């Protein structure tokens, strides 16, 4: 099951440049939360702070507290331990190109030392089913590589790979921006189903997508979270004028 995320006084920096300012947010367990805002507003930085992906950038640092369920992200937990609980899906599908579809899904478990062929088979099947991909690839699991299937299928494969390690939270950074409308529809349908089991945080530039899949929406601007509310409120009657200007396209 998914767990809630509590963010308190989060500030993020790249060297001397501050990218996030005093973010406070409660992400509700087993719901989808969308983060919207113009390019460079800090939403991707924010999502990356939730599983410490920002640490891959030199001189990046954070202040403040992030708790995922009952453990602290920045207090003694290793990044590997953390990422087992917090899966991530990126803008561009990034399956391991030389691995088979099966091995792509099993990779996380194998890296964690998981053995036992029968159980592995079961987890791969379940993960692919949960990612709504099983029916399309069940006959080519070992025959085809992760890079040989369509873009939409690759993205769902990446979701299956993230689900295989049984995370509690799934972070999605513009997961549909490289996909056609049909594949986008499938991913959105998937998000809808997945939130029964996982807590989902999705960054998107597509405001209609945020409106369709998320119960809560946060609007970021210049590194600050301007408004956070129920999605229907943000898109029909936002409180802050800046949010209204953004969602109505008057921005800039």
């Amino acid at each position, binding site marked *: 099951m998914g767990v809630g995320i509590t963010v308190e006084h989060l500030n993020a920096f790249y060297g001397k440049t501050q990218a996030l300012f005093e973010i406070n947010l409660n992400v509700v367990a087993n719901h989808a939360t969308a983060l919207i805002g113009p390019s460079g507003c800090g939403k991707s930085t924010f999502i990356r702070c939730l599983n410490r992906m920002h640490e891959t950038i030199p001189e990046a640092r954070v202040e403040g507290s992030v708790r995922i369920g009952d453990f602290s992200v920045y207090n003694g937990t290793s990044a590997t331990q953390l990422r087992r609980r917090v899966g991530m899906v990126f803008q561009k599908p990034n399956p391991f190109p030389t691995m088979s579809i099966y091995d792509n899904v099993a990779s996380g478990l194998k890296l964690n030392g998981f053995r036992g062929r029968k159980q592995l088979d079961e987890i791969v099947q379940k993960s692919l089913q949960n990612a709504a991909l099983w029916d399309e690839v069940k006959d080519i699991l070992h025959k085809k590589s992760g890079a040989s299937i369509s873009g939409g299928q690759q993205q769902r494969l990446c979701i299956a790979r993230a689900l295989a390690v049984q995370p509690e939270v799934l972070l999605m950074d513009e997961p549909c921006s490289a996909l056609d409308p049909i594949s986008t529809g499938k991913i959105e349908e998937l998000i809808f189903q997945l939130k029964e089991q996982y807590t989902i945080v999705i960054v998107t530039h597509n405001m209609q997508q945020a409106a369709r899949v998320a119960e809560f929406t946060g609007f970021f601007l210049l590194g600050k979270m301007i408004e956070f509310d129920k999605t229907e409120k943000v898109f029909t009657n936002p409180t802050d004028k800046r949010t*209204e200007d953004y969602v109505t396209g008057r921005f800039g």
Partner: protein
Amino acid sequence: MRTRFQQQMEELREKLLRMGGLAEQAVDRACQAYSDRDLARCQMVLENESLINAAEREIDELAFDVLATQQPAAIDLRFILAVTKINSDLERVGDQAVNIAERVMDLIELPAVELPVDIPRMSTAVSAMVRRALESFVEGKAELAQAVLEMDHVVDRMRDEAFISLVRKMNESPQVTQQALDALLVARNLERVADHATNISEDVIFWVRGFDVRHHAQELAAAEERGQRSAPPQR
């Protein structure tokens, strides 16, 4: 800035205002025809109904197009929803004007009699409501729309008074029953126009302030007290 979108929104606003003008004119003409027993004016109301109906279809098509292609949100989404509802109300205002004109045509056929009802006074009040409701739309001012809601009670009272006095007249002088009945129906048609003006005002408040005041005006007052914003939308 989405230029094409803003142009379409402006086009919607202008088309709706033109339609509002037609509907308002139809009611005024029908009431004038009542006062003057003017058959020609009645004919004009009947002929112009097709213009109002065509305007309704045109506005609906444009609103549908904008919804499908521009995916508006927040105040823009509320504006388009309000426009489609106001459009429907204005078309019905036109229908009421036609009903009044038909009653007047009936009355013209009958001997003129003195009736205990002040239709011109009622029509002045109703026309003011329609005009102010449209003004509140033009200016995006919820305060103006709120004032229209308060006027509705006055027209309701006029309709009730007309009903009582005309029924009494029918009992006292059965030979004028047909004329009294026609006048009663005109009063009822005018009261319906006032209801449409009320609906239009409620839609303007929804567009500007983002909350629904239908059937619970008291909540509007409570929201005002809580200090929710009431500034006109920036277009």
